């Protein structure tokens, strides 16, 4: 049995947590603790950290089970080995659509980096658009490289890139 840890993004409504706990129980996981991070609640979603023990193959089953239910996993670790999903949010302002948004997105995506969400606001077709995006990366290096590429693309396409503050 290995020590396992999951950070999930759950909808803040009755029954959501029990879905997760059922999957862990079905896969022979032995639950240690459940923590809700209420101060990080956003848009009705709440980060929840769950610690339990499970065999390696059962941990894989739990992950599959959660993904099958459409539950968002933001961090997972087994045996103390982090398989963290690093996230970075950013905003692009300008003619993001007209300057080929698909090209802008694809310029930073690869096997280690993917766009997790995209939110576009357009005042009118002729006005600049604003895009809020969240990217996920498997490691810090991949994330850093993606953000550097994005900064270059933004300059080239005359877009204003607003990123989060560095930690």
């Amino acid at each position: 049995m290995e020590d396992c840890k999951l950070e999930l993004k759950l909808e803040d409504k009755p029954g959501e947590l029990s879905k997760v706990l059922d999957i862990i129980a079905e896969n022979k996981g032995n639950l240690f603790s459940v923590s809700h991070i209420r101060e990080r609640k956003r848009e009705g979603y709440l980060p929840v950290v769950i610690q339990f023990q499970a065999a390696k193959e059962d941990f894989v089953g739990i992950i599959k089970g959660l993904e099958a239910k459409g539950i968002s996993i933001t961090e997972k670790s087994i045996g103390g080995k982090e398989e963290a999903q690093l996230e970075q949010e950013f905003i692009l302002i300008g003619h993001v659509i007209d300057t080929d948004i698909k090209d802008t997105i694809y310029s930073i995506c690869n096997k280690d980096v993917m766009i997790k969400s995209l939110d576009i606001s357009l005042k009118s077709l002729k006005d600049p658009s604003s895009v809020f995006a969240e990217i996920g990366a498997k490691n810090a290096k991949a994330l850093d490289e993606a953000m550097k590429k994005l900064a270059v693309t933004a300059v080239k396409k005359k877009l204003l890139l607003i990123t989060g503050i560095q930690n």
Partner: protein
Amino acid sequence: MKKVRLLLLGFGVIGRGFAQVLLEKSEYIKKKHGVELSVVGVGEYNGCLVGEPINLKAALELREAGKWLDAHSQWKKGMTSAEMITSVKADIAVEVVPSNIKTGEPGVGLIEAALKKGLHVVSSDKCAVVNKFTELRDLASKKGKWFLYEASAGGGMPLMNLARECVQADEVKSMEGILNGTTNYILTKMSRGGMDLETALREAQELGYAEADPTYDVEGIDAAAKAVILANDIMGWKKKFADVKITGIMGVTKEAAQLAKKNGYVIKLIAEIKDDSLSVGPKLIPENHPLNIESNLNAVMFKTDIGKDIVIIGRGAGGRETQSAVFSDVLRICKDL
């Protein structure tokens, strides 16, 4: 009672604020610090007030009535501030003139003249300090005089004094924060009030938070100058204004501010002082982050090796609020006199 003579170089918003606070707090300062502060000269662009002491109440009343200081009984027509520095015996020069961001003048010349005459100097003049930071510090050191400028970056917030006096064993690893109240007011209105930038800017101007020409604020120039001063003073760097990567807020749209809000963020104009580099630009800040402060407030987060995160929030500008920093510097020097 220790008597300390001051020259007040400039009688604009900050200079008048100094005079007003001195009139209000002189008894408190005497009681708390054992110091009697006495202004013996006031420099303006077309003449000076000279006398021991200057009747500051009369000077303030003249300006409140919309009159120039030439109607004051102690007015010396045509005397330059440099001449006053040379001819009037004093201990500390309080330099509060508005200087040019590109040249640092006339502040640089006045600070140099005061230090050369053997006066200690307190300055609120970011343009002078940022332009000749190293030169002025070296001159003060050579003359064995204090040169303090807390009010030049962060207005009423104690930043450099905090680093100098309060975190003695800590190494400040980085700083980040909001160093311009005008842009913070505008971005707050765009996020919370759903205003577009032009409307928020107009409102800031009507409330007196923004100048008629807001270029220095909205283009990030004001915040960049302050970042250079903080980096050089607290981190011991030798940066120039040109070393700052600056992006203003003019490209930020109402839609972007609202998208950020929808996703749990706010957009703030943030100065970052980290890893030997300086930048000023709009950044996404989580809504629950300590730097998410509203209205025209300023805030700076220090990251240190021992105390970890230390956040100071306060008024970055204002004729009265800035005096908190000016008087702290003056009274620090008084301890050594």
